[in-house]
């Protein structure tokens, strides 16, 4: 668990914001195309989109809060159980670490010396670091990530609403498609920069998934 987030751990908040924005764009974009392709009135379409933005924003923030707090719960559980384990059964901890280093190619003598040294200062912290891959003095803070996606989702989600609010005279489906695709390029670029990902791949995937999602909901909206 700590394993996956640790690379981007520092930019956790930024990442939550960009992910929230991307999610807002794709899900609200798809919904907008779906309802815009039905025979609802303009007023009802607006209500549908605004409701979806609000619901998405709330669910996004709560989802983020739940998942990050589950992660920090899990980390605290590990810290608690490892502390107890070290206190009550020091030999087991030592054995675990020694055999781990023997697997990595050290001989028994050297591994024992190394483990003894590792456990000399801050024993539990080192044990957790090696066994679970996270630093117990640097655990996750759920609130800021949740706030970031709570703000980013509706901002990005209102982009597909604009072509409906301001009638541009052209077919609104096409305008929504184009607006969303252009925004997906921008957000894909930001996402790649924030996380160090490959820019063209992220943008490409974003475009493919965005248009796929919009096409499907467009069909559903047309069917009903």
């Amino acid at each position, binding site marked *: 668990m*700590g*394993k*996956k987030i*640790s*690379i981007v751990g520092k930019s956790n908040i930024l990442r939550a914001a960009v992910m929230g924005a*991307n*999610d807002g764009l*794709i*899900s*609200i*974009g*798809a*919904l907008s195309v*779906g*309802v815009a392709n*039905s025979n*609802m009135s303009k007023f009802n379409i607006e*209500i*549908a989109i605004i*409701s*979806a933005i*609000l*619901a*998405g924003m*709330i*669910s996004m923030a*709560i*989802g983020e809060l*739940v998942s990050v707090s*589950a992660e920090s*719960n899990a980390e605290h559980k590990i810290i608690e159980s490892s502390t107890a384990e070290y206190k009550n059964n020091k030999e087991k901890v030592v054995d675990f670490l020694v055999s781990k280093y023997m697997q*990595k*190619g*050290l001989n028994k003598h*050297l591994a024992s*010396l190394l483990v003894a*040294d*590792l456990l*000399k*200062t*801050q024993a539990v912290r*080192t044990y957790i670091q090696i*066994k*679970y*891959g996270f630093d117990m003095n640097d655990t996750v803070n759920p609130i800021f990530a949740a706030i970031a996606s709570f703000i980013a989702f509706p901002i990005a989600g209102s982009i597909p609403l604009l072509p409906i609010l301001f009638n541009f005279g052209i077919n609104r489906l096409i305008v929504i498609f184009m607006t969303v695709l252009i925004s997906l390029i921008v957000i894909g670029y930001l*996402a*790649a920069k924030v*996380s160090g*990902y*490959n820019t063209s*791949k992220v943008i490409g*995937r*974003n475009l493919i*998934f965005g248009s*796929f*999602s919009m096409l*499907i*909901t467009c069909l*559903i909206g047309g069917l*009903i």
Partner: protein
Amino acid sequence: MKQSNTTEQKMNSIRAGILGANDGILTTCGVLFSTSIASGNLTLIFLTGISNLFACALSMGSGEFMSVSSQRDLEQQLIKKESNKLRNNRKEQLFQISKYYQNLGVSKELADETSKHFSNPIQELLENNYNIELGHAVSPISAALFSLIFALIFGSLPLLFMCISPEHLRLPLTLIGCLISSNLVTYLSGKLSNSFTFKSLIKNTIFVLICILANYIFGYLI
């Protein structure tokens, strides 16, 4: 963390599925409530609910694919970079490994001696510096599919409850559908990660109620 590859992959896919399910339930239910309050037009409510369910599932699935595959790209990039850099420079390799152990409190002589004995020094460096374990990739497609399908299945429950309920009981029954579906997901995820407690069900119920209440209030404001 000493799980086999496949178990860890499965766990990651299920984790993606649970995230998707939660989002599917909360947005569907939220939209059903705010449109019911704002308009009361059944076609509008139903159409928005179903479009939103698909939009949400698709967006969760693609978001999951994006983040897992980009993460994998990044890891592979780092692995390639570090391997290239260090394959030809054993001295630097040993120095970095030794420094890592010295920072953890190991004496310099012992850290230097230890660093020479790792059978795969590049892997050791990747683990120490980036927490990357070689050969532990998650499949982006399975994560995306789990997320998409779980969101559709669990998100459709509140919608189903709304469709079959008589008119005067529509909102309360939708709320019940939402609570059942959402607590089922909490129960499953707790069982899977061996951390299930009744407290988590209560916490989840409160979260859902806050979510619905917020949508209810927004519905009035529209």
